[in-house]
């Protein structure tokens, strides 16, 4: 079974600075998807960024980027120019490559990010 580990329960960063959230995972599969989800105080989980394991290029979405190290099974999230609206719980998630009826996500325990004005 796959496992996802987020070793930082809490992080804080000064507004406008850069912060990196860590995620490691364990799998025997060679093809899979990785995700970062954000859960703000409103509780609505929102997808931040996703990465397909067969793509070597790291995914980026505006101020959000990942450092995907497949051999090390590491998938960290970098947030540049942090803004107050980035304050949230961040979850790393793993999904196996598609097979019918098997599209569930495995989540890490989350990292609570605080933005200091």
């Amino acid at each position, binding site marked *: 079974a796959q496992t*996802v580990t*987020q070793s930082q*329960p809490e992080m804080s960063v000064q507004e406008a600075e850069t912060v990196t959230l860590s995620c490691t995972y364990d799998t025997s599969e060679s093809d899979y*998807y990785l*995700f970062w*989800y954000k859960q703000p105080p*409103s*509780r*609505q*989980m*929102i*997808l931040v960024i*996703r990465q*397909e394991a067969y793509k070597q290029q790291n995914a980026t979405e505006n101020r959000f980027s990942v450092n995907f190290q497949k051999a090390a099974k590491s998938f960290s999230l970098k947030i540049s120019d942090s803004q107050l609206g980035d304050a949230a719980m961040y*979850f790393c998630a793993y999904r196996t*490559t*598609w097979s*019918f*009826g098997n*599209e*569930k*996500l*495995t*989540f*890490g*325990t*989350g990292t609570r990010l605080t933005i200091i004005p």
Partner: protein
Amino acid sequence: DVKVTQSSRYLVKRTGEKVFLECVQDMDHENMFWYRQDPGLGLRLIYFSYDVKMKEKGDIPEGYSVSREKKERFSLILESASTNQTSMYLCASSLQGSLAKNIQYFGAGTRLSVL
């Protein structure tokens, strides 16, 4: 925009009560999921469904059942609520298929307290 609606934001029930948590999605998604979120444990999958009347157990199905009679609606049932089922419950839905675009969309969650 995809909308996943959970019927209650907050719910307080008594031990032994039968509890229904309802979830409706408006984007014709084949897959629907129920997760439980607890501090320090992240999200854990209770049940999921990939078609009407189809269900699969997740990682923590004990004490729960589900119902999917219509494509857009997925209900989580606590047959006899217990205090250890006090938690946040999140519903999600997604398209079926191999594209990475079939991401999961979440509802706002139901915070259930069992007294």
